[in-house]
């Protein structure tokens, strides 16, 4: 596929006129999706989808178009040139844009990861035996995903990977759930069976009668999957420099008023894992490690080159939407084996659900507890809890109320499949809070 994009891009770019600049973005997937309910197959299918986007810059104006490809070079070249010419017709009617990010020269890159994946006809046979005695709902997603970039200055980037994920929930008869994801690039049946058995063992902890908590403030541990959800909010009107400049960020207080989070909290963009492309839609390579928050102090925000031009600052080559692409939160010194004892009396939350800013500028997030969540008393798990709504600020959760951070982190893969399967994920530890506000 890399060679196909090279051939196609070279032919398109050979048509660029001297007063034009062009950027090409290429992405797609060949993915197998098998959906399970009650540990049986609900829906099963395959998607092959490839898209090319052309961005034209001319006379200080810009416009872009994207379209589906057939992967037949002649067909795709023909329709690409047709779309390219449409852009040329449209662009003269557009106003000048002072913040255009022009294509640059630079060092090209290519990163390819091939894997060992299950054949589509083997998925049901391979996955079903381990789950036949439990109630499982979830999705198997597997195949090849790719993204490429080329521009009229000769820069070319490629990133592709084979990968699989089995994202599932195991459900007890009392409707309590364990959530987990088995993911990787090299499928191994023994590893899968072992992983699934471990999840099934966790179900036993949920068999006790659930407790209903009253709204109030509770001493709380949030496991890495839940922390990953909280950090996910930093991508929505969070660490974006553009959002901060336009007064639409939960981090305004940190940027403008020197507000601080806990010294226990540090967060980086870290591409050293190699699971996410280091180039953005403008073909710019970011640094391998960008500190965002160090010991509770805001060090960097996410700055795209367009934002940089608009506000006359330096870019750190963030994505166009200035969201986190490869977040890694620093670990602390809380021993995972002592979490219940450290909670002593309070709440153990494995997962959170449906988070949203309830007051974006105030940094307040609301959401629900979900899946394996427990009441802890005298340092022991007593019973699962009924789901509760929380409503608390990042300045409490990662600030005043953050007591400690676990010494090990966990990689939480991004299993999102809107438009296409996602790359990468979030690496983070668990957090112990001396108070967390449950409201309903």
């Amino acid at each position: 596929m890399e060679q196909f994009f090279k051939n196609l891009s070279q032919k398109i770019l050979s048509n660029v006129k001297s007063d034009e600049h062009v950027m090409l973005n290429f992405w797609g997937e060949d993915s197998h999706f098998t959906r399970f309910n009650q540990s049986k197959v609900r829906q099963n299918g395959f998607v092959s989808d490839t898209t090319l986007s052309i961005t034209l810059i001319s006379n200080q104006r810009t416009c872009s178009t994207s379209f589906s490809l057939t992967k037949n070079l002649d067909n795709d070249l023909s329709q690409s040139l047709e779309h390219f010419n449409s852009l040329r017709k449209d662009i003269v009617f557009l106003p000048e844009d002072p913040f255009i990010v022009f294509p640059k020269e630079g060092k090209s890159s290519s990163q390819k990861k091939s894997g060992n994946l299950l054949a589509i006809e083997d998925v049901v046979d391979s996955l079903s035996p381990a789950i036949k005695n439990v109630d499982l709902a979830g999705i198997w997603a597997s195949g090849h995903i790719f993204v490429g970039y080329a521009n009229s200055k000769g820069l070319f980037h490629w990133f592709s990977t084979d990968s699989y994920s089995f994202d599932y929930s195991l459900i007890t008869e009392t409707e309590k759930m364990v959530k987990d994801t088995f993911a990787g690039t090299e499928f191994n049946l023994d590893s899968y069976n072992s992983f699934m058995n471990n999840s099934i063992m966790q179900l036993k902890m949920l068999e006790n009668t659930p407790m209903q908590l009253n709204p109030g403030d509770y001493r709380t541990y949030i496991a890495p999957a839940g922390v990953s959800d909280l950090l996910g909010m930093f991508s929505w009107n969070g660490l974006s420099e553009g959002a901060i400049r336009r007064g639409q960020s939960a981090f305004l207080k940190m940027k403008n008023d020197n507000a601080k989070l806990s010294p226990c909290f540090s967060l980086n963009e870290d591409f050293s894992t190699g699971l996410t492309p280091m180039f953005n839609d403008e073909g710019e390579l970011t640094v391998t490690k960008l500190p965002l928050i160090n010991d509770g102090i805001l060090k960097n925000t996410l700055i795209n080159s367009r934002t940089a031009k608009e506000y006359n600052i330096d870019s750190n080559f963030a994505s166009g939407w200035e969201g986190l692409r490869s977040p890694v939160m620093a670990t602390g010194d809380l021993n995972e084996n002592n979490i219940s004892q450290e909670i002593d009396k309070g709440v153990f939350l494995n997962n959170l659900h449906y988070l949203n800013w309830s007051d974006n500028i105030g940094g307040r997030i609301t959401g629900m507890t979900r899946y394996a969540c427990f009441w802890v008393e005298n340092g022991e798990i007593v019973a699962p809890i009924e789901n509760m709504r929380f409503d608390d600020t990042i300045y409490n959760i990662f600030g005043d109320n953050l007591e400690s951070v676990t010494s090990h982190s966990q990689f939480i893969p991004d299993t999102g499949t809107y438009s296409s399967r996602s790359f990468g994920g979030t690496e983070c530890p668990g957090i112990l809070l001396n108070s967390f506000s449950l409201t309903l």
Partner: protein
Amino acid sequence: MENINLKSIFNQLKVNAEWFGVRKVRESNTYRMIRDGNPQANSTGISHGIMVEVLKNGQFAYAASSDMSTASIQEAIDRAIIIAESSSKNPLYNFSEDVRPSNKGNYRSDRSKTDLPLKEINNILFKSYESLKVSDKIVSASATARITETNYQFLSSSGAEIEQDFLIIGSSFDAVSQDKGITQRRTDNGRGRMFQSGYEVFDELELTSMCNKIGEQAVELLYADECPTETTNLVLAPDQMLLQIHESIGHPLEVDRILGDERNYAGWSFVREEDFGTLKYGSDIMNITFDPTIKKELASYGFDDSGKKAEKEYIIKDGVLLRGLGGTESEQRSGIKGVANFRACSWNRPPIDRMANLNLEPGDSSFDDIISGVEKGVYMESNRSWSIDDYRNKFQFGCEYGKLIENGKLTKTIKNPNYRGVTTPFWNNLTKVGDSSTFEVFGTPNCGKGEPNQSVRVGHASPTCLFSNIEVFGGA
């Protein structure tokens, strides 16, 4: 490749299955945005491809491709058959072809004005942007247009032959105000303005007047009191009812959720199969319809993706739950009467149960009747925050703009208005439903659900409503 003859290809396919169908979708999305006086986006995205579905050994399987050559479609068929055969080794349910009706027909969005030059759209967006900038307290403002054109064709071995054409116009306007460390934001109806319509939506006078009001209210909010924290009467405008209906009625009544398909992602439902016909969902004045026939509403259509003809149905009548939001597959699996809502977001995703247009039918109270009958309460407009649990019970929603109601009158403006509640107690506290003069139609293109994930268009229309004994509160 753009203009293939689907019927000709369909007739050449060799398929060893109980049933097969081919769905071809071409959708273009044009997006134009002006922010802070400069162009921010001028883009068009075209997604074009086919999905084949086969029924083999009682199992549906799909294969989708952006390559629409005859060879590629045949390859997709062959692959789908292999997948269906593997599913039949561990199936959840054995389907018959009855769940793919053999209807023939066409649908086309209603439209008056069929085109508007790019230059004119940009001019209107610029003028709208300028109207948002009512003072130097507006620190950022944007005006956006989104135009979607979709052509959908569906053919099946049982004789279905459907073509549908949609034209969808959306706009959004946004003003951010700041003063003395306080920031507020006001939009047009919480960005719920998306309709099946022609280019007549871009009415310069109407839009600039609306933008002027948005800008003024953004500034007004800077100096407003915080929403009080209390349990009180709550009046919701139609642009917040949109979200209230969507989250606390639409999703819990989607039958695939009730059957557990979504338990790993969007969630389950507090509603159980035995609740249909008996559950008192809301007060006696609550009447909810699935209505794909309102011309302007975003998710109107002639047929769903199974080929079922779309018709208006009462879902909740006089407060009692009657019918589920389930398509033909859910009807066969559960026995619950459903509607034509088996829908996919595009050619590259399989159909699942989606709510489409879900509306609250008008009652008999004018806006003045509602407000004048409230001694103390809060009025809220335009959604800005939403969150609800996986059973669709405990919700918390926030709005952009509020007013106190005191002694039957709207008085002070309040900022950061929020409320929370639990679904059926909340709807059973529905005290007054506005009449048709208060009824407004809205829609959003961003309803997420399904594995693999899908974002679809939904429409919601509602009058203004009064709820009693609701917990309201302000910002951080």
